[in-house]
């Protein structure tokens, strides 16, 4: 069963994500502008977008993991309280996992898109159009993730 200690660990993880987001961003940004060309502006905006998305994905993942575990623990508790068998408990947990499978796929895709954009930005002379296309792709993935998280929140709230 989910122990209070585990819940606290996850809460700590969430708090750590906020700090990490701030630290990552601070450590990954430098000041000092020169005369900016269109290319510079595209790359700067893409870098800002990429770093922001990375922090947001980390934070969303932490929240999603808490929700994922809580949903499974609730189903195990219900099975115990109703005097169900182990197979019934496993079936309950399997339903939760099936609901979450597309969410984990979406996170994996978002991480991949981020890695692609980060590699592009880190290359010697990234093309502005390729960078912009990768930024757009990353933005789509963020919208998809936010929709999944909203759906999971609604499901959790509905279970109250």
């Amino acid at each position: 069963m989910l122990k209070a200690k585990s819940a606290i660990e996850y809460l700590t993880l969430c708090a750590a994500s906020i700090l990490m987001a701030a630290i990552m961003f601070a450590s990954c940004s430098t000041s000092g502008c020169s005369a900016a060309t269109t290319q510079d502006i595209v790359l700067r905006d893409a870098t800002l977008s990429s770093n922001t998305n990375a922090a947001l994905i980390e934070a969303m993942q932490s929240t999603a993991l808490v929700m994922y575990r809580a949903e499974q623990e609730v189903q195990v508790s219900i099975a115990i309280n109703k005097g169900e068998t182990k197979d019934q408990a496993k079936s309950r947990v399997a339903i939760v996992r099936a609901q979450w499978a597309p969410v984990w796929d979406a996170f994996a895709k978002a991480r991949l898109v981020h890695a692609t954009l980060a590699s592009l930005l880190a290359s010697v002379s990234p093309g502005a159009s390729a960078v912009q296309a990768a930024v757009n792709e990353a933005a789509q993935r963020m919208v998809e993730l936010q929709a999944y998280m909203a759906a999971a929140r609604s499901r959790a709230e509905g279970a109250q």
Partner: protein
Amino acid sequence: MDPATISAVASAIIAAEPTLEKMIKSIVASFSEQHGLDAVEIVRQITPDKHGEIDSTVDAEIEAHTWPKT
């Protein structure tokens, strides 16, 4: 922990998530403004979600419990 408590803890975290998102965006916006941002370094990797570890933990809990046979 009983289901109601688990739900309450999860709800509190879920409720905090939009605030968390706003907070991160705010940190980024504020930092950019203060430093005239010209970011050249990039966050290369995002930590994998590790949901498989949660599955293993829950599976172990199910196995450890004594269940009715019928």
